């Protein structure tokens, strides 16, 4: 029997609604919500997500959902502030460590563990756990992706059961950040019995026993991940009773799950879906900051003979001319309407060293043509320029999974054509795209990265040292002045000087036209209106999820299940 669409997406038709109501009423009796003393305590939030987690072991995470869940399950010694300042320790907030002391030479920090902190299995958190965590992260047999980010951490020792001392190789502006941000504290008593070399395949990676304000209740692969409030947590219980990630492996199905009301939050809305939410009375859109940024990255090395300059894009004049051919603002509008954000250089606008006043290479097709003329690139009969018998033709590599990047490549192809450059679109699945990127086997690539908050991330991407096998400078950009400036930016203790060094390095990268800075992807979530969100951080909008809440008067039946155990 068909029924009219309900006014609220949380109402359901059919027999289940009666079960639902009966269940909710009975649940209210046993719910901690009733005795919580606060009207903000209680409720369930369902996230719709197109991907499942792979592991609950923080050093071995590989995707965003891994990171989201592990960030909520585990604690750090201290937490970064919302302004993402990575220098020193002044702005960091205590988490597992209630306080810390620096040694006289600043090469070690003693962290004093909160004596009330407990693992989700009831065992107390101890200094030995900190020592074990550092050992595990540093163990080459584990192979954590955080390896380059914790290189300055030497070791950790135990002074007493509640004091762990972390030792560093050098005194740097970000040594505190390196430790507390990159290393999540893990339970030694749970993990130590598993050999490090077997961690990747051991079942222990699915247990998720941490000390965070949420605990893992259930993980059904491919279906859902359920976290519940750790009601006895030393930092206080979260306001929500329960958070569920409902996994819909198809993007459209994940959106529909949100739009139909089966899920409360979907964090990857696209412009066309945002338009559909305009008149929606049950849902709203929430824009959150991100460290992601997208640019066209030119390969300055010859992909066929690495170490040799690229025959076309190794020429600074060609790269500058191509940059001048691109009307970035018009493209942004074309692809994202009013939702996109311009980039002003090789950085997302959310990092503390971002600067929107840097001098840009202007959009000027006349100058672009003149520059190519003067560089000896002569237009042929088909409009494509050539020089010494070589056509000005190259490929742009892009993954077929990204609609925005695919649109951009077509627009770039057209823009380059107008100044006499031919572009072949090299589109493939993400694994193929990544292989070409990692092997430097491309002419130009549609790069989308999420950087780390600290300026050291840029050093890996833009320094000459980053061109090495272990580096991330896939475009083989090299400028000794930039190297020196990035070195200075990562070693100064003065935040204003750090910003100045970084600004000067970025300006040089821009003027060298190492890439065309296109956009920061619009990161927009759809959220049910009954949910009150907390401030969102660029490194993860979920950072304050424990403070999200649903006012008592606006709760739906499923919010009132409480923490009743399952049948």
């Amino acid at each position, binding site marked *: 029997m068909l029924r009219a669409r309900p006014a609220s997406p949380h109402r359901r038709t059919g027999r289940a609604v009666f079960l639902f109501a009966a*269940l909710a009423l009975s649940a209210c009796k046993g719910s901690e919500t009733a005795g919580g003393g606060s009207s903000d305590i209680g409720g369930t939030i369902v996230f719709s997500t197109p991907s499942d987690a792979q592991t609950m072991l923080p050093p071995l995470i590989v995707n965003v959902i891994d990171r989201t869940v592990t960030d909520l399950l585990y604690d750090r010694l201290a937490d970064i502030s919302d302004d993402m300042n990575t220098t020193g320790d002044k702005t960091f907030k205590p988490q597992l460590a209630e306080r810390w002391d620096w040694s006289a030479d600043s090469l070690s920090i003693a962290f004093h563990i909160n004596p009330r902190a407990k693992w989700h299995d009831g065992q107390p958190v101890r200094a030995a756990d900190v020592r074990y965590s550092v050992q595990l992260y540093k163990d080459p047999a584990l*192979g954590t992706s955080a*390896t380059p980010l914790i290189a300055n951490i030497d070791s950790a020792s135990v002074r007493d059961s509640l004091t762990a001392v972390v030792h560093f190789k050098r005194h740097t502006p970000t040594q505190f950040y390196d430790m507390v941000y990159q290393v999540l504290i893990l339970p030694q008593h749970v993990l130590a019995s598993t050999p490090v070399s077997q961690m990747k395949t051991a079942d222990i990676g699915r247990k998720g026993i941490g000390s965070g304000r949420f605990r893992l209740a259930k993980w059904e692969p491919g279906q859902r991940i359920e976290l519940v409030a750790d009601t006895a947590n030393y930092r206080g219980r979260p306001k929500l009773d329960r958070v569920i990630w409902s996994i819909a492996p198809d993007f459209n*199905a994940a959106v529909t799950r949100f739009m139909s009301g089966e899920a409360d939050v979907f964090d990857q809305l696209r412009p066309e879906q945002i338009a559909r939410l305009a008149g929606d009375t049950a849902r709203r859109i929430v824009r959150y900051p991100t460290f992601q940024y997208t640019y066209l990255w030119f390969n300055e090395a010859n992909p066929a003979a690495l170490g040799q300059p690229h025959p076309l894009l190794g020429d600074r004049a060609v790269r500058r001319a191509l940059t001048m051919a691109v009307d970035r603002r018009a493209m942004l509008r074309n692809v994202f309407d009013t939702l996109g954000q311009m980039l002003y250089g090789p950085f997302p606008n959310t990092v503390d060293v971002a600067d929107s006043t840097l001098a840009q290479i202007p959009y000027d097709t006349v100058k672009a043509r003149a520059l190519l003329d003067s560089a000896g690139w002569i237009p042929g009969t088909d409009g494509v320029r050539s020089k010494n018998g070589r056509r000005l033709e190259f490929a742009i590599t892009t993954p077929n999974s990204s609609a925005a990047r695919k649109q951009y490549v077509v627009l770039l192809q057209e823009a380059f054509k107008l100044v006499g450059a031919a572009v072949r679109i090299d589109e493939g699945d993400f*694994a193929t795209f990544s292989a070409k990127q990692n092997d430097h086997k491309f002419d130009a690539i549609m790069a989308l990265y999420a950087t780390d908050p600290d300026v050291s991330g840029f050093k890996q991407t833009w320094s000459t040292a980053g061109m090495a096998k272990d580096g991330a400078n896939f475009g083989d950009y090299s400028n000794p002045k930039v190297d020196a400036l990035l070195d200075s930016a990562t070693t100064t203790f003065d935040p204003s000087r750090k910003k100045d060094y970084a600004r000067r390095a970025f300006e040089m990268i821009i003027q060298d036209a190492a890439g065309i800075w296109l956009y920061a992807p619009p990161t927009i979530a759809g959220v049910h209106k009954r949910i009150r969100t907390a401030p969102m951080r660029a490194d993860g909008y979920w950072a304050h999820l424990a403070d999200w809440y649903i006012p008592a008067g606006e709760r739906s039946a499923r919010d009132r*299940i409480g923490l009743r155990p399952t049948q």
Partner: protein
Amino acid sequence: MRRYLAGRLLQAVSVILLVTTLTFVLVHLAPGDPFGEAFGRPNVPASVRAQWRADFGLDKPLPVQYVRWLANAARGELGFSFSHRRPVRAVLAEALPRTALLAGLSLLASFSLGIVVGVLQAERLGGARDRWLGRVLLFTYSLPDFWLALVVLILFAYRIPIFPVGGIVDPVLYDYLSPGARIADRLRHLVLPVVTLTLLSTAAIARYQRNALLEVLPSDWMRSAIAKGLDWRTAVRRHALRNALLPTITLAGLYLATLAAGAVFVEKVFSWPGMGLVTVNAIAARDYPLITAAVLVMSVLVVLGALLADVAASVADPRVRVG
């Protein structure tokens, strides 16, 4: 009979070996590898990626990897899934029954419906019923599966929300429901994917059944049956249908493979974590052990299906004898 079965078995093993070997080689030759893109950020050192490859034996020459895989597979060890971080056997043990349930129900529904529609058409050959049913079948047959799945999803889960959007059970409520309500919840989640798959496959089956009936209807024994006083409808249903079931039974055997292969798009759209979805995601993630194992299971089912179809045909038609 024994020689026939031994021959078929040898043939089956050869086919399975060939298919899995080809799969193994092709997936390894495809660009990219499981740990090339897995970390999703540029600053993961190549040495870390190399270490992960070594940990999972991907640094060995391909022939060595193949021999190792073959030896393990012979012992029932299908390896470790990189993308699920679980043994492949555990991943398939979850996915296979889900797909079998979904595909089994839809096959049952589509064969029942297809045979009925085929008979209804054959009873009124060239008539209005035959023509209209033919048009409807042609229409449903020409629908792309992902499109139909999305339309059904949007229509009955979003516009008229009488069924859940997808998944196997309600992600919030299921654990709190009574046993009876849990069964009802599971059935509700089955409706849309089963209906979609049934709509997609009924047309072909009905067409087969109608054509098979067309071949037997002019037979002498049908004329005799009518001459003896049976009405046309009874003659078709009692006598012609049994004789015309042979091609449909063969088709059923071939369809058996879908019990393992799954329906990729339908599983994807309805978030049904079955074999199709698992396999496609494994391909995207370059999860070599999972891809190869999934293909192994599918090829076993294809071969088994063909064998069963032969046996079933011999049972249905005494003129057909295996061996």
